[in-house]
């Protein structure tokens, strides 16, 4: 989706303002929001890709002008409804009025094992990757209405395959509840001057799935 979140190369946002000795959370509600998203995510039945898609579904003006954990709040409210954990009325009123889904919430002593568990998004498919390191590729001109991880600023550009990481869960499918649909994932290297036309000597890399790429 060509949303406000896809901001690589946009201009006008001003300087990067870094705060000295920044706390992990600035306000208590941010900490609670972070923890809620994580804990409800354990029982909600949605994937990380759906989570990202839900946060990106905010109205663009709201997305740009709201804080990071406000994106999470918006995303969680959306996910609770789309996954049937709470009704629109319950979300609006914050009063439980509909039956709950029976789940076992993550217990306090299960948090550390859960957050430190070594996971993987790589899946065995038996297929062979189309591209090899060193191959020249071009990113496709894709403008899907759904969640994707091919940023706008990298569409229709030539690059070089730097590495293949095996088949990984494909966000374009997984974010829509269409299953993991694993596809080969590559790190692709682009010349900044090819992207921006500015003669910069620098390189840009992105991790892109095979359906985003074509041989050139």
């Amino acid at each position, binding site marked *: 989706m060509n949303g406000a979140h896809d*901001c690589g190369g946009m201009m006008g946002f001003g300087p990067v303002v870094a705060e000295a000795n920044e706390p992990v959370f600035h306000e*208590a509600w941010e900490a609670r929001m972070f*923890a809620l998203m994580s804990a*409800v995510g354990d029982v909600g039945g949605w994937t990380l890709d759906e989570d990202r898609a839900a946060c990106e579904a905010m109205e663009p003006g709201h997305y740009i002008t709201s804080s990071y954990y406000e994106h999470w709040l918006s995303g969680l*409210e959306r996910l609770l409804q789309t996954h049937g954990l*709470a009704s629109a009325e319950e979300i609006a009123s914050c009063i439980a009025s509909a039956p709950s889904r029976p789940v076992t*919430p993550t217990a306090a002593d299960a948090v550390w094992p859960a957050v*430190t*568990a070594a996971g993987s998004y790589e899946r065995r498919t038996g297929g062979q990757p189309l591209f090899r390191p060193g191959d020249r590729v071009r990113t496709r001109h894709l403008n899907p209405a759904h969640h994707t991880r091919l940023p706008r600023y990298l569409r229709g550009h030539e690059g070089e395959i730097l590495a293949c990481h095996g088949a990984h869960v494909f966000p374009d499918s997984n974010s829509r509840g269409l299953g993991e649909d694993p596809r080969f994932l590559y790190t692709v290297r682009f010349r900044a001057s090819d992207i921006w036309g500015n003669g910069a000597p620098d390189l840009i890399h992105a*991790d892109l799935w095979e359906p985003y790429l074509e041989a050139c």
Partner: protein
Amino acid sequence: MAHDGHHHDHEEGSELSPIALRVKALESLLVEKGYVDPRALDVLIDTYETKIGPRNGARVVAKAWTDPAFADWLKRDATAAIASLGYTGRQGEHMVALFNTPDTHNMVVCTLCSCYPWPVLGLPPVWYKSMPYRSRAVIEPREVLKEFGVDLPDAKQVQVWDSTAELRYLVIPERPAGTDGWSEEQLAEIVTRNAMIGTGLVTA
């Protein structure tokens, strides 16, 4: 600090901002519906406030500087090398170590959201998640670096890494001169979070 604020907020609800009230009400709903245990929320917050943060990454860097075999392992299989120090988990499932050299400076961004290697760096700072950094890191990385006080010579190539999948990047900065003979612990002390994102350099 956030914890103190948290307790304060609960005592004096009338002082809460609209969004703080909203999150508090949503938490009450989700507890009532049986989806979350509030004690688990406390543990989650404490985990990322006090246990998982950039000191982990600093230990990875210090070991890479002092142990050539470990540095080699990091280059070949960063996920396994970092796991050997006990750093695993969410948002660190597939790790890649980017070694700065005299010719190359690496810098990490997530233009699409806020992907960041939690097990080694903790949760990202606000600037990393902000529109200015996300929009500009890919189109004018050298200008962004200057705002962080990093002014690179033209001859040094900047390599930007946009975290668009589940690979997570950790920059291994150059070891500063004047640190010969330092212990791993001493070295870890001087490694900053920004240096491991690529918006800082390490100085002795």
